[in-house]
């Protein structure tokens, strides 16, 4: 459904993604993992046309996305940061999206599902972060698109909403959709993902099923497997954070 070829992206001198080739042909849940700054969000934004590639090509459902916007009607996107115009009411925001994408048949049931009906007449600027994220989720799931791209869907959600979200994704997987998600919550990945893409410093370090990753790293636990993957790749993130904690916990420093 999504095919990426020789994709390269740099911001000025900084190479964010290098030579990415990725074939997401079969429906299911694909988790994009990687340390902060590994290029997860950039990859997602490239697929959406928010970021333009330096080299390389992307096709969505067989259609090149270069200079096109129509292909985006097959994608629904959940942005990482849920911020909306402060002076609009929730109801009006949903209307804006419906104006753009057409009437949604399942809007009412989704509003009910995520329990935001009491907030419909509240201004978006007055909502809490978690409620805004629920509005964000309603906007994303309002349309029955073959592809969903979710950037950190669990951010700010309470456990109840989190379970609701998981159920929803589970439901959608059965409908043969392609769901691409980034998250730092490994249990969520473990229970849902068919496929893992592990990005490291702008390259694909591992692509395969979670079981395969466990086999390769000889662990039974995905969290451990991913930690091992980071250590083996010699990524400085673990070491430097260990150092930071080490120095923070240094009793000498505390005394001073």
């Amino acid at each position, binding site marked *: 459904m999504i095919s990426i070829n020789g994709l390269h992206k740099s911001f000025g001198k900084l190479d964010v993604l290098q030579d990415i080739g990725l074939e997401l042909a079969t429906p299911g849940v694909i988790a994009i993992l990687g340390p902060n700054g590994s290029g997860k969000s950039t990859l997602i934004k490239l697929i959406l*046309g*928010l970021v333009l590639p330096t080299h390389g090509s992307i096709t969505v459902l067989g259609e090149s996305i270069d200079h096109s916007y129509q*292909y*985006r009607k097959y994608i629904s996107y959940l*942005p990482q940061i849920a911020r*909306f*115009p402060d002076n*609009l009411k929730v109801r009006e925001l949903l209307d804006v999206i419906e104006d*753009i994408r057409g009437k949604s048949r399942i809007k009412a049931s989704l509003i009910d599902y995520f329990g935001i009906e009491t907030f419909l007449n509240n201004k978006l600027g007055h909502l809490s972060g978690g409620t805004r994220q629920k509005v964000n989720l309603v906007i994303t799931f309002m349309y029955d698109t073959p592809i969903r791209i979710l950037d950190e869907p669990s951010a700010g959600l309470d456990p109840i909403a989190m379970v609701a979200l998981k159920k929803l994704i589970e439901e959608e997987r059965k409908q043969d959709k392609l769901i691409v998600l980034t998250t730092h919550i490994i249990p969520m990945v473990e229970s849902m993902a068919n496929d893992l893409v592990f990005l490291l410093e702008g390259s694909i370090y591992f692509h395969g099923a979670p079981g395969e990753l466990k086999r390769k790293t000889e662990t039974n636990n995905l969290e451990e497997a991913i930690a091992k993957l980071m250590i083996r790749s010699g990524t400085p993130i673990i070491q430097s954070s260990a150092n930071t904690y080490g120095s923070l916990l240094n009793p000498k420093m505390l005394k001073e």
Partner: protein
Amino acid sequence: MKKIIIYSLKDLLRSNWIYFYSVFFLLTTMALGWMSQDPLKVVVSLLNIILILVPLVSLLFGLMYIYNMREFTELLLAQPLPRMHVFGGQYAGLVIALSISCLAGIGIPFLILSLHQTVIWFQVSSLCVVGVALTLIFSGFAFFIGLRFENRIKGFAAGLTVWLFFAVIYDGIFLWVLTIFQDYPLEKFTLVMSWMNPIDLGRTLLLLQLDISSLLGYTGAVFQHFLGTVWGKIMSGGILVLWIGIPLWGVRRLAKRKDF
């Protein structure tokens, strides 16, 4: 694009700043109207306020709007919409909201004043045209700067620099050049220089309507001689329109290849 315009208008017309802006003009115009019985003087004083304030507010409010909308713009750009419709719609929404606010702030007091005294409607409407044109131009600059600088502090600094340049520094340089070369014929140079700054252009256009160009001395006569003709008016009007286009052309170029 219409949908984007409507939603931005809905959002903007509920902003307190827009009301504040309107009320400021309302009070200023009322005060000027009550204090002076000479309608011409009211228009000239108001002109000076508009020439300074409209560019400043358009730039700062525009930048504030663009930076506040940053994440939502991203969501809109991920919808099946062409990029230019998103930005075009937001620009139109911003410009319409600011213009309504400015026009209401000037228009309502004059309507009230017209009950008691004569109002020179033609000049007042010219004043409004200049106000709207400056809103269009400097909101365009705000969009350009907002897209160019991701960092808000840099963006606001750039916005203030643009305003300072056109409102203050340009005139300073202009006067300085005029005094240095005062022995040479400078009429044509002056004319061209006044076209290169939208604020000056607005000022000359309006002062000519007010028929007080004689106050400007010999240069004023040259202005009147040229700009008073139909051709001169068309040309100045055309240049003002060109000024609206310049930042928008930049916005188009930036928006096409920008990463969000």
